[in-house]
């Protein structure tokens, strides 16, 4: 990179709550919560005033324990669920001038299909298990308006080859594949439209070590070769250390610390981050 570039994605004051809120918790400055939960009304504040930038070609890691709001953030950014309040801007979409959360659901689908790819922790969420693998990859291209079978087949087999799935198995359904292969089909699907941004949600969790290494290797390769910007959610600091340039630490729906990954791992400032780093085996 070298020169200072403007962010490809900016998120400002993103809030996501589950529940209506009450007098005790609706003011974000002095709300009384037990972790992220309001004892008075039962509202859960999953994401509270999250703001961050993602720069072109960068991998931004997000760590935090389960329940800290990492996946909620990812789901919000991929429009799987609506945010309560907040703004997000995407440089490739209308020059970054429009708040994505204000767009119609049709436009949000356009953004999903043309400008983003997401890999879910659970392949069941990201793939149609009964359809063929090539069909799964084509689905995203069809959604983006492609109507040429030969072109989609060629692109699909190229991608499967890239993620090391033998092309002669492309007509098989992902349900016949191992967990690691399913994850790689998901990555191929996410990449099908050359999205500038990739959202990775715990992609290696639950995979055995050799397969994990394989998937991580692939992601590293994608970042280097294709210069894709990535948001990488993980609770595994090893994964973060290997892949992320910068890291945000989340706790109870808030960002408690952010900075260069090395800095955070070597010199953690926040008590929670210190605990997290020290519990690393």
């Amino acid at each position: 990179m070298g020169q200072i570039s403007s962010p490809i994605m900016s998120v400002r004051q993103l809030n996501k709550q589950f529940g209506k809120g009450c007098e005790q918790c609706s003011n974000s400055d002095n709300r009384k919560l037990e972790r992220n939960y309001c004892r008075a009304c039962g509202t859960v504040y999953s994401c509270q005033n999250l703001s961050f930038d993602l720069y072109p070609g960068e991998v931004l890691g997000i760590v935090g324990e389960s329940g800290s709001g990492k996946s909620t953030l990812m789901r919000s950014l991929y429009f799987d669920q609506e945010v309560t309040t907040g703004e997000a801007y995407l440089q490739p979409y209308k020059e970054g001038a429009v708040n994505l959360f204000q767009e119609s659901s049709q436009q949000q689908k356009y953004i999903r299909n043309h400008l983003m790819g997401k890999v879910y922790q659970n392949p069941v969420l990201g793939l149609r298990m009964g359809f063929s693998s090539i069909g799964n990859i084509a689905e995203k291209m069809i959604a983006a308006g492609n109507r040429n079978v030969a072109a989609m087949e060629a692109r699909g087999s190229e991608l499967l080859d890239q993620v090391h799935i033998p092309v002669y198995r492309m007509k098989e359904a992902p349900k016949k594949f191992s967990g690691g292969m399913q994850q790689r089909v998901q990555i191929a699907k996410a990449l099908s439209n050359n999205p500038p941004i990739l959202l990775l949600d715990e992609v290696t969790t639950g995979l055995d070590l050799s397969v994990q290494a394989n998937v991580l290797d692939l992601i590293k390769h994608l970042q280097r070769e294709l210069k894709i910007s990535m948001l990488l959610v993980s609770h595994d600091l090893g994964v973060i250390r290997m892949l992320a340039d910068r890291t945000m630490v989340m706790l109870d729906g808030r960002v408690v610390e952010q900075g260069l990954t090395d800095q955070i791992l070597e010199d953690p400032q926040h008590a929670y981050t210190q605990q997290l780093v020290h519990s690393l085996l």
Partner: protein
Amino acid sequence: MRIQYNFAFLDEGSKREIRRATLKAIAIPGYQVPFASRELPIGRGWGTGGLQLTLSLIGKSDVLKVIDQGSDESVNAVSIKKLIDKTTGVPATDATEAATLIQSRHRIPEVPLRTGQLLVLQVPMPEPLRMYEPSELETKRLHGEKDYSGAWLMLFEQIMKYRSVSTGADHPVMVNDRYVMAPSPIPKFDNPKMNYSEALILLGAGREKKIYAVPPYTQVVSLAFEDVPFEPESFPGHSCRQCGAEDVFMDELYDSEKEETYYQCNDTSYCLQRMNAQPLV
């Protein structure tokens, strides 16, 4: 004891509700309008949707024709004709030109329909996206957003598996450039007859409780890919053994005594009419 049924079996309130749904369906071509499907003396899934449309629309001056898979004389067609005749006294005919109201299961007659005629089709599965998305809430949302990648994905899967589009019947169509619609299990051969049809086409699904319509002179396009165009069935080099017709939809039959296959018009009244017009040898 003879029960005195209301004219056309259904009570006036029911007929009015069905007509209202029908009007809405005509106003939004291809859109599935829900309606309260009534109990009838035939089982759901045996043409109750079509029958309810017919019963709600039939008047004393109508002439009725009922077809079951091309045949005027199969059990289902005859039973439906008997029921309508007993409760209305409306005469039935086999001649397509003479009929004003045609209820059909899975065929559009060979004789071109004209202005003023009404074609009622029986539908088992009104939702073209059902195999792709099992949830009705989701498919309604997909229709609302005009997101039809699922319909194309299902065709893509067929091409991947069989190297060609394998839908023999119920090939999805785009109506008026807005809604993708299941044309009921008519053969692909009949799909082009829906495009700018002079007659009003109504489709009723009794078990699934939906009514939808193709108004006269409405564009109906069969879904296809750029490099895999839509191809209706054709019978090159074959003609009807009875009437000699070509370019019609034919059944392939097997003569076990002569051990040979032969072809015959699927539309029995069309075939009979042609034979009657031919000079005796």
